[in-house]
């Protein structure tokens, strides 16, 4: 099984990268040969982690590139990764909508590489007609198509006319579990999404923090997300929440904000466990992995009522939601007020007995033990199905003929 994707751990640790890590590790544990093909800002190398082979290809980065043609970095990865795919001859590939292997429909018959296409976003930015046409082929020629949620699968089917399964990002309940006592003296409101991604709603959270702090001066807001995707988020210090701390007007409220940085994968379960509430006030969110991670650690969450998060936070026993459907909602004073109320509710909820258990039980529906077999089953079906239908392939048969 091969997972080509331009970014991976430790350089990017959210979204598809997290999914690839958990699913590939699961497959390796199940006895499959798993190979992740990705890129590194450092020296190209091959690594082996938890039974998974990881090929780090050279990453193309240059100041002029990011100014004039940032997507060339992805094209460069596509070319390099394709070389690996041709030499690899894997049984199947798990591709994402931003894996960069947009010529997979051509590769599929040429090297005999069936693929599962996983939709990772709600909207895909495809400005050119050629891009859109290629992408349509990418979707339609896939052996299986999957989305992260029911809602997402419905949209894919509606838009591209192909059947779409649901394969949610898993959460490893063994790693993400309550590993520390909740911080009672100064309850923590945790934000672990990307601080430089405007869609994650950081600025709305800062606006809301004024009211939260006024009502709960003992609480602390901990910002523990990364600072943007290298190269692609250029204005991360000025145009995102990082440059807008003045939205928090009260100096005492500003003092109560801690900028912790993304930390390590190993420390995240502790941070979630210590927090009283994890907040993800984003819009256009395909899923919301931070929510399931937080719930698995027994910590209630606050998120949008729409898209992926809306499907996750479907009970007031494990958190609260705010109706966030567009960029303008993130600028709205009323929404900030509602978000503050939701956070205050979740802070109270976190103090109730039984909340930790309820959250963890809720998260178990996305546990790796449940999602992993689905992934395995899908890939096996792809391989079996492809072997049955393949008429032209450069790939040697098992019997060597």
């Amino acid at each position, binding site marked *: 099984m091969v997972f080509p994707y331009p970014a991976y751990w430790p*350089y990017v640790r959210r979204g598809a990268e997290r999914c690839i890590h958990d699913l590939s590790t699961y497959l390796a544990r199940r006895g499959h040969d798993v190979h992740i093909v990705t890129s590194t800002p450092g020296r190209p190398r091959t690594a082996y982690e938890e039974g998974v082979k990881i090929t780090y290809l050279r990453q193309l980065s240059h100041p*002029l590139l990011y100014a004039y043609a940032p997507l060339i970095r992805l094209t460069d990865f596509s070319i390099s990764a394709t070389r690996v795919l041709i030499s690899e001859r894997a049984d199947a590939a798990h591709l994402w909508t931003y894996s960069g292997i947009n010529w997979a429909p051509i590769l599929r018959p040429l090297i005999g590489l069936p693929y599962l296409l996983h939709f990772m976003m709600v909207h895909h930015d495809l400005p050119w007609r050629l891009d859109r046409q290629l992408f349509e082929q990418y979707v339609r020629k896939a052996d299986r198509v999957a989305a992260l949620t029911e809602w997402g699968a419905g949209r894919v089917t509606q838009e591209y006319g192909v059947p779409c399964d649901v394969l949610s990002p898993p959460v490893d309940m063994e790693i993400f579990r309550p590993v520390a006592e909740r911080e009672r003296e100064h309850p923590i409101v945790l934000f672990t999404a990307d601080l430089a991604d405007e869609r994650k709603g950081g600025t709305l959270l800062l606006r809301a923090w004024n009211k939260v702090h006024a009502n709960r001066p003992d609480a602390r807001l901990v910002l523990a997300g990364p600072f943007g995707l290298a190269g692609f988020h250029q204005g991360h*210090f000025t145009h995102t929440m990082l440059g807008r701390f003045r939205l928090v007007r009260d100096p005492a409220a500003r003092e109560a904000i801690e900028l912790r940085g993304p930390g390590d994968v190993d420390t995240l379960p502790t941070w979630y466990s210590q927090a009283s509430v994890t907040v993800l006030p984003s819009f256009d969110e395909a899923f919301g992995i931070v929510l399931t991670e937080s719930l698995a650690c027994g910590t209630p969450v606050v998120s949008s009522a729409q898209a992926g998060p809306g499907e996750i936070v479907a009970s007031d026993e494990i958190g609260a939601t705010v109706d966030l459907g567009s960029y303008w909602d993130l600028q709205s004073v009323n929404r900030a007020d509602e978000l503050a109320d939701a956070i205050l509710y979740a802070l109270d909820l976190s103090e109730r007995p039984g909340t930790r258990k309820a959250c963890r039980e809720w998260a178990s529906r996305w546990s790796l033990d449940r999602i992993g077999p689905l992934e395995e089953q899908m890939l096996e079906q792809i391989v079996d199905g492809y072997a049955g239908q393949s008429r032209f392939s450069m790939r040697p048969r098992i019997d060597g003929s």
Partner: protein
Amino acid sequence: MAAPGETALFLDNVLNELQVTDRVFHALKQTMPLVEELVATVRELAGEGRILVVGSNSLLATALHDLGYQIELWHLPGADLTGAMKRFVSRTGDLDALLTPPESAPAFDIIVLPYVLEAASESPALVLSRLRSLLRPGGCVLIASASVGRLLYRLRGLTGRSQLPEAEREQTTVSLSWPALAPQRTVDRWELGRWARRGGFAVEKLAPVMDTNATNPIVAMRLQDWLIANAAYIVRSNFPALRDCLVATLRPLPAGGRDNTPAAGEADLPLVSVVVSAEDRSRSEQVLGDLKQSTYPRSRMEAIFLHPQAGDFGGLAAGDAGLPVRLIPLPLTTGPAAANLGLKHSAGEVVAFTDDRCRIPPPWVESGVAGTAGWTAAVTGEVVAEGSSLHPVLALPGSRGTANGNEYDRLLFPSCNSFYLREGLAGVGGFDESQGAVWGWDSDAAYRLEASGFATSFENTIFLSREFPVPAGLGWVREEYRRAQQIPMGIRRMPALRRTLLKQRVFLTSATRSFDLTLAGLALVLLRRRPAYLLLALPWGKSAARVVDLWPPAAWPRSLGNLGMLTARQLVWLAGLAVGSAKARQMVL
């Protein structure tokens, strides 16, 4: 010691294994040359040991740890540090709190301060003196500071902008590498040296460092900006003075410095021993009277009179309240042996030297004590000649036998107006008695202190007046010839003085240079029969004009006398310097 390039390769491996995000990776990559310089220096200084890093980044901490050093990190909030390194954090807080450590036993072999010193609210000298107490014997401090000479700062200055722009000060929220500290001051190599000395350190090594690349690969740039950045990089590569950062290795000075912190009360003030070289009883009483009028508390002073064995100085010590006076009879009350005896009998932390031809103004002791703060072990000031003194025809160093207020005398430490830290002076062996009371015997000790790392200085606030006696008859010829003859040897003994004093290490002053040129011009006229060589006498003519009045004619005889006297003095000095140069094998003209 690591082979060249080995440290870079090692760091590259460390960076590639670090569990950091791509943005942090690129930020750390930009710091590689600085980290490489720091790590290489640490490896040169110690193969093993305990290292404290204040405000580290992940790469430096991991590299030092992987090399087997025991590391301790003082961490600043908001700075990025990998989880693996966080377990070595022993203190967290804002910078000023970190730089005021609780008192503890010396615990570290090396302390590393990357971009910390310029951001401290308190004086860097004070910060260094505090950290000094944490160093084990043989330990040292490594400092990395943004250089004021860096090209960016220079360009900002040229365009009328502040070198520490407000916008940069505000950008202190996020840090992907070194902690984002707002600089409070700029740093240059000389200032760094001064801070170090005041804090009890000597700068052992200073290296300019620059970034790995002209640009950060993930920061988008327009073509013109990229071209400018690359051009600037080429300039910085070729001119080390324009590079971004200074890395300094500071080695603690030997014990003997004085605490930098202001005294809380009179009892905290240092005890000062004033050693007076006395010849005459009545003049000595005058000096004692001056000392009693001092603004410095009498309870924190003592006076030691080195007086001739023959004279009756007994009454000096009697009937005085508050100012202890000690009398030491000696066959010779001046020169290095007498000064060393005074030093030996002094109990003060600070020792002042003067003589009974001086009149001491009330703030003299107080100014001297202020000047010897920290590791400034020797200070001197101006000696103003009293009206009845010998008028110096030639403004030469030591031409009056001691300082006479000209620019050259700022480099000398005359025995009538100098303050020393007793422990420091004793540590370098006091005054050199091997040559006797030759020219420069008193300054020699200060230069030895400087060579061992202590600071020395000339302070305008430390001044007194002195009477310089006029030799009878032609006594000046013998006296000035003797002095001129001793100067080359003195200059040879004091290389630091030689570097500063000599014009291209040949001429003593512009006065001797112009006179020597005149003589050379005259010689060439005689040899080549070309009067044009007389033009070489123009500089001397200009300097001699100050003793010549061309009008009225009645003044001509006096002017001729002055000119003759000036010429005679210069000839005496030339002869003395020539003979002395031959003896000392040190050309001084």
